């Protein structure tokens, strides 16, 4: 059974419809990537799953539960965490405070500490900068913090919105390696990316979004080989 299942999702901002009925599913343990140009509706899809935007119609089911019946903070409790577009770290708080806020709903102190240790293993830079204010971190470090903060919630499904945006190529490579390690730890990943090549090399399957519609879906390998994908997203 699919862990996440989106069916015919329509979303409007004001009177403008930005998602015209998209459907997708993510199975437990998979890495699925959502590709598309700016304005295709990738971030809106993630924000709909996290319930920060309301759907006009359609259903989103997580582990069999209809997310339409839950509020955004409850969705986190069900096991969905997001590292949002633009990172949105709490700039005037320290790295550690940011991470601990990620575990706001985790009551078990021992679990919280062991997750924190795991995140410091994944991102040693965060441990070095533990006491530093998040706003003073570099872009790459803020990205690590946003991902680490989401992982602190111990999610079953991790939503990543453009983790490679604005990062140096070497850092992009290391971020993608880390995503693989996170996935190997049993976390299901839905990855929104503009860096299609890197995303498809990492993912099991992919969806291509164009102006609010899913125009293609296939295994990552097939998409990498697909001529129209190559032309539009992989630079020929």
């Amino acid at each position, binding site marked *: 059974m699919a862990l996440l299942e989106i069916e015919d999702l329509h979303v409007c901002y004001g009177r403008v419809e930005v998602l015209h009925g998209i459907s997708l599913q993510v199975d437990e343990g998979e890495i699925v990537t959502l590709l598309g140009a700016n304005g295709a509706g990738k971030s809106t899809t993630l924000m709909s799953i*996290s319930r*920060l935007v309301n759907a006009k119609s359609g259903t989103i089911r997580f582990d069999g539960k209809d997310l339409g019946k839950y*509020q*955004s*903070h*409850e969705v*986190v*409790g069900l096991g969905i*965490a*997001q590292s*949002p577009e633009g990172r*949105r*770290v*709490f*700039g*005037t*708080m320290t790295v550690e*405070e940011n991470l*601990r*806020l*990620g575990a*706001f*709903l985790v009551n078990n102190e021992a679990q919280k500490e062991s997750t924190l240790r795991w995140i410091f293993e994944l991102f040693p830079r965060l441990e070095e900068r533990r006491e530093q204010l998040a706003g003073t971190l570099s872009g790459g470090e803020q990205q690590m913090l946003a991902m680490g*903060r*989401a992982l602190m*919630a111990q999610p079953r499904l991790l939503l990543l919105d453009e983790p490679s945006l604005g990062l140096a190529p070497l850092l992009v490579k290391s971020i993608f390696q880390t995503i693989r390690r996170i996935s190997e730890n049993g976390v299901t990943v839905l990855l929104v990316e503009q860096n299609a090549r890197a995303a498809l090399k990492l993912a099991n399957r992919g969806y291509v979004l164009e102006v609010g519609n899913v125009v293609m879906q296939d295994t990552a390998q097939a998409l990498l080989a697909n001529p129209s994908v190559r032309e539009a997203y992989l630079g020929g």
Partner: protein
Amino acid sequence: MEFFVQQLLNGLAVGGIYALVALGYTMVYGVLKLINFAHGDLFAVGAYLGLTLLVSCHLAQMLPPFAAVLLVFVLVALMVALIGYLLERVAYRPLRSAGRLSAVVSALGASIFFENALMLIYGARVFVYPDFLRPDFTVTIMGFSIPGMRLLVIVVSIVLMVALQVFMLHTRVGAAIRAVAIDQGAARLMGINVNRIISLVFLIGPGLGGAAGILVGIYYGQIDFLMGWSYGLKAFTAAILGGIGNIPGAMVGGLLLGVVEAMASAYFAVAWKDAVAFFVLILILIVRPTGLLGERTADKL
């Protein structure tokens, strides 16, 4: 020197009261970007509720003065906190998506409502707090004899401020309040129930404001139904002075404003103390438009 120290302490006492009220303005602004114009009136409600408990409910007769004041302090803080909570639910939450101006109008309406409710219930005259509640001891520190009352007001306000600061900086819920003030959407992604946090802020701010109302009643001995406006304006000024939205800023702003006022009354003229206080505000805003400790630009005002 003696005169200067006494004025300084007087300023700190008044400033501590301003600071306690200013915290309510600044915390609400922090999470909602709304100036709660009814906050000063909640402070006045606190002063009146305290009077009712002490006099009409005879608490002042039944208990020794210290115990009576302490009990009234706690009860009033709780009651005003509850009123603040209801205020948000009734006057602000339904307007959350309606744009900022609607909420400001609602706040002004709530302020008028509370002022008139006090006038109708208690009458439009000055009320006097039982004066045997005022501690009449003096403490001698470094050769200066300080009225116990003055010292007590300073100590109580500082203890409350430190307690709030510890709560904000060292608890999980305090961190959640700060997170909501920084980025509501991101806070929701952490699993924080933003509505609960806003309700909590409307409990804490008015609770502190209500406590400050009793401090005024006991310190000055008299209260009137318009005191919410005059003190509210000063406390709001203090919040701006320190940088609105910034909690330590409200504390510093309140204390500074109190001291400036006391010094202006002592060395210039009592009649000019408000003018001097606002002059200082204008000066500071010219040099630092975001207030003493404010970081963000004031464009949201």
